[in-house]
């Protein structure tokens, strides 16, 4: 039984948490849209930093960022885009196929492989970064897209998510397809994957976030701007004096937009799965 005061307390706690999450976002958007750098500096000292009067909205900062020749943001975003889209699309197939084999085929050592993949989830990128870098430079992949794509396609957590989902799909569906003459791959493609849209969406969002925001590895493996992702460019932009806050925040907004778009594009698939409706009466 929750009393009125308890509910009020919960509401306050929730609001505080939400405020902590949203405040930086408000600051980012508000500052990016303010045209007057002096006004921004004054506002940063008070609550007005989180707010902008609608009449003051201007895209001056965005124009400046997009026109900046030393930091070609569109080029960096394109780099990030190529890297993330490659990882995510190839990853969906590679990881789901691995999971399909684990969920549907009998072979000795299967459980060991599953345990191994789960164990891999907890190994952080940082701990393998140096050996991986040595490998990349040994095969001459430094400063390339592929150095930022190939090592990250296989993704233990994605395999695990797919595996769990596939294991819950009734085997009757596979058998019905098999009796009707479908091969394993055909079953994967026409039955299992279409039923897995929610998991595909989850995996796509997780992996895009992870690699859109990647910092350490690109820092190690890129030198010039050819293959450098936008995350790294932002850091460099930040550390180039003097700081122009309006431009910095406009840069940040531009960098955040694609990931927000990806999230909203995929999130409707999160909502529900249709599994189960073909089973039983």
């Amino acid at each position, binding site marked *: 039984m929750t009393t009125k005061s308890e509910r009020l307390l919960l509401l306050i706690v929730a609001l505080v948490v939400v405020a902590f999450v949203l405040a930086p976002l408000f600051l980012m958007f508000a500052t990016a849209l303010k045209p007057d750098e002096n006004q921004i500096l004054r506002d940063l000292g008070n609550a007005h930093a989180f707010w902008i009067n609608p009449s003051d909205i201007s895209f001056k900062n965005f124009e400046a960022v997009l026109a900046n020749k030393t930091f070609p943001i569109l080029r960096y975003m394109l780099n990030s885009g190529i890297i993330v889209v490659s990882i995510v699309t190839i990853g969906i197939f590679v990881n789901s196929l691995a999971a399909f084999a684990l969920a549907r085929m009998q072979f000795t050592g299967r459980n060991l492989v599953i345990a191994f993949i789960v164990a891999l989830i907890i190994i952080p990128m940082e701990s393998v970064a140096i050996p991986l870098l040595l490998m990349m430079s040994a095969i001459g992949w430094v400063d390339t897209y592929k150095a930022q794509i190939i090592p990250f396609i296989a993704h233990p957590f994605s395999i695990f998510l797919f595996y769990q989902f596939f294991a819950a799909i*009734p085997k*009757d*569906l596979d*058998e*019905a*397809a*098999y*009796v*009707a*003459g*479908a091969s394993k791959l*055909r079953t994967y493609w026409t*039955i299992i994957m*279409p*039923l897995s849209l929610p998991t595909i969406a989850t995996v796509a969002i997780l992996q895009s976030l992870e690699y859109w925001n990647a910092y350490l590895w690109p820092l190690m493996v890129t030198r010039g701007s050819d293959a450098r992702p936008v995350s790294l460019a932002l850091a460099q932009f930040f550390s180039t004096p003097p700081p122009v806050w309006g431009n910095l925040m406009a840069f940040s907004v531009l960098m955040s937009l694609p990931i927000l778009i990806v999230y909203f594009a995929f999130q409707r698939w999160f909502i529900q799965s*249709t*599994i*189960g*409706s*073909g*089973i*039983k*009466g």
Partner: protein
Amino acid sequence: MADLHLTQVRKCFGNVDIIKGIDLAIRHGEFIVFVGPSGCGKSTLLRMIAGLEEISSGEITIGGRVVNDLPPKERSIAMVFQSYALFPHMTVRDNIAFGLTIAGEPRKEIDAKVADAARILKLDALLDRKPSQLSGGQRQRVAIGRAIVRNPDVFLFDEPLSNLDAALRVNTRAEIAKLHRDLGATMIYVTHDQVEAMTLADRIAVLDGGVVRQFGAPMDLYRYPDNLFVAGFIGSPKMNFIPVKALSVSADTITLNAEGLDALTVAAKGAEILPGTALTLGIRPEHITISHGATPRHQGSVVLLERLGHQIFIEVATLGGHSVTALIDGEEEVELGHTVGLTYDASKCHLFDKNADSLRL
């Protein structure tokens, strides 16, 4: 012609024998029912015929071809699953067409075959729905439709009605029987419901513990059960089993008695039975009447009485301490607690020896 032969078919999972050497010869166009208690291996046997389970040893032929190592699609079979196993993301049309699409048939032919099946199964109006928008009975028909369009020699059904409610089950049962008549294909149907078995089958295979206890026409199993298991499994209400002793024997009769039971002479193989041997007498409830004269009787008191109208179902506790159920004429005057004498129709009595085998002549 697609006769189906099983020769010494066995299946073991690890070192557990599940199917222990089954021989069956099924003729083209027969409706065969596998019936038996839960866990006796019905589904396993069906799945071996389908090609979903490997055969540990023995041989299965369909239309004279050994199919042991052929994948399901090359066996000319189609299977209807207990869970229906419809593809949830596909429309009814695509579900039915699935096998044909896989086989790469031309779009036109697929459409024609799907339309045919939909007409037979009255699914015309539902072709564009998803399985989730169908009732249980409709899903069932889609699952059957998916089998029909492939025009197989042998249809395999694994408990197709078990997810339907009682009324729908009776309907669908009739529809499946009609389908069998119309298509003329061989059908193998698994159930643990002996009523389904009796009503649908040309021949029934009664399975128990991985072996066939008897294989024959429904009325043959009902009239001439080979053993106690089949006698108890086929028929509803169940056959009564009463422990008795052989009083005297001849080559083709055995006279027996039990406490409270007047001497009763039954035609049976008496040659190897010694007087005094313990036997089991089997008598179906519908072959018992209330005795009004001097016929041999089994005395006891009525402990349960249900008036069904044209018949009365009674349970009698006999003097020997056994309970015997009987379906007697609806006009008989019996009351709960009355002492009655039951008369067993000697020509309908079954005798089983200590190995549970019938002593039928």
